[in-house]
């Protein structure tokens, strides 16, 4: 069981190895910004990893296409971003994502 902390809201979730970050948020009753509801096409769910980058699954080809489109306008290091609907975690992480809130 991995621990996900979301800032700035301070929400903490446990994440199963088999579920993506956004699926874990949904299971716990939270809303995570998205328009495509998890297909990886809208890129609205993009998060920034603050801590625990090594605990994330490798970036697949499809997620990379989304990140390539999304990150050029985002502040900071492009490699610090992941799509919440594509990434899974196997260890404790801290991420930055504005807009995560109780559904």
């Amino acid at each position, binding site marked *: 069981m991995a621990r996900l902390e979301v*800032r*700035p809201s301070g929400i903490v979730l446990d994440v199963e190895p088999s579920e993506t970050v956004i699926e874990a948020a949904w299971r716990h009753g939270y*809303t995570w*910004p998205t*328009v495509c509801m998890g297909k990886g096409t*809208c*890129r*609205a769910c*993009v998060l920034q990893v603050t801590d625990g980058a090594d605990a994330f699954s490798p970036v697949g080809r499809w997620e990379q296409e989304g990140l390539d489109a*999304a990150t*050029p*306008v*985002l*502040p*900071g290091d492009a490699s610090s971003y992941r799509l919440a609907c594509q990434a899974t975690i196997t260890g404790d992480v801290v991420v*930055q994502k*504005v*807009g995560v*809130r109780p559904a």
Partner: protein
Amino acid sequence: MSITERSPDSSAAEPGQARSRGRTVQEILAGDPVPPPETLRREHPMHVGSEEIPVERYISKEWLALEAERLWSRVWQMACREEELVEVGDTVLYEVAHLSIIIVRTEDGLRGYHNACLHRGTQLRVHDGYTPEFRCPFHGWTWNLDGGLKEIPCDWDFPQVDAAEFQLPRVQVDTWGGWVFVNPDLDAPSLPEHLGTLPGEFPWDTAARYKSLHVSKVMRCNWKTCMEAFMESYHVVATHPQILLTTGDANTQYDVYEGEAGRPGWNRMLTPSAVASPHLGDGVDETTILQGMMSTYGMDAEGITVPEGSTARATLVSMSRSMDPAATPASIPGELVSDAEAIDSILYFIFPNMQPWAGTSPINYRFRPNGDDPDSCIMDVIFLSDFTGERPRPAEVIHLGPDDDWTMAEGLGALAMVFNQDTNNLPRVQRGLHATRRSGLPLALYQESRLRQFQRDLAAFIGAD
């Protein structure tokens, strides 16, 4: 939303009347502590038909040639700024399609001439700047600034040339808001007639600003493909997902004003900031919106909250005012800039190719075809800035090629990345327009009504159905 199960947004009875469920712009503006200028309190939607826009207009050489002959040769178009033509002899070169025009400051005011020697056709000028007279670099034929023929070398060899018939052919020149407009058609209606009701609905004194930045970039797409990307906020959800928390995209207000006597009209859109996109559903709280705004700009949003009873909008406006206390709307000098003018995206469109932002934004756009290539165009980004004291010199043009990046233009700042996001898609759009099996584009009835009006007015100039 699947297309077979349409959202309740589209339930209105009359075509073009359906709206997003988000709060309207007028509802948002009504809650602002510092209300906007009168004109922004008006709403003027118009149903401009539901026909498809022919794909041919974007890709065919024949259509581009018709535009050169029937649009660019006959329409008022923004050529430059008055402050680029201060001293007698200052010139600006304006080119579009096959046209090449010199605008010059003379003793009698601004004049415009077709940029071609009347002997063998050489362009008299190839760049902006001062000249005391127009002397052709080929054989030396020379004209005064007032267009009168001054000298023909070896004039004994030209007994057939009557000086009165060899004045430089003129174009119409007039100004509005510090902008210089030209029209090659000497019989065309005046510039005030062309602008119609627009000046009365544009209370920002752009003549009091100066040109602080000018980037001119070649784009791999038709000029209309490029221009129309800046005429709707419908694209925000797919193109700019990073601003959904802070942008009223689907609830943007689109106003369309008809021209008089069959002349082209003008239009505008108001996209509110610091409100959440209707695409994100209800219940995005004000603190989340503010944090979203700050994270967009790479600021630390930790511990930031919107005070009880206030809004993200009010908080952002006060931050914007404290960052730029000098910013005042030219409409009400000395008074506090309104909330809408401080943070919203308010874009006007002047037919055929000019888009000034309103409020405190410095941004202006212009779009031109690039020669006779329907798949290439030139996009100009021109900043107008306030100044105190002596008027600063206008900025030199920064030229960018089709493969250059907007970030290569110093002075655009964070906007460069947004322009990249806006324009990266465009070669892909142009390529797809050649590949599509459909003959027309099914534009949105409301959110793309500004494009529809432009296309209808363009078709009227061309004489197309």
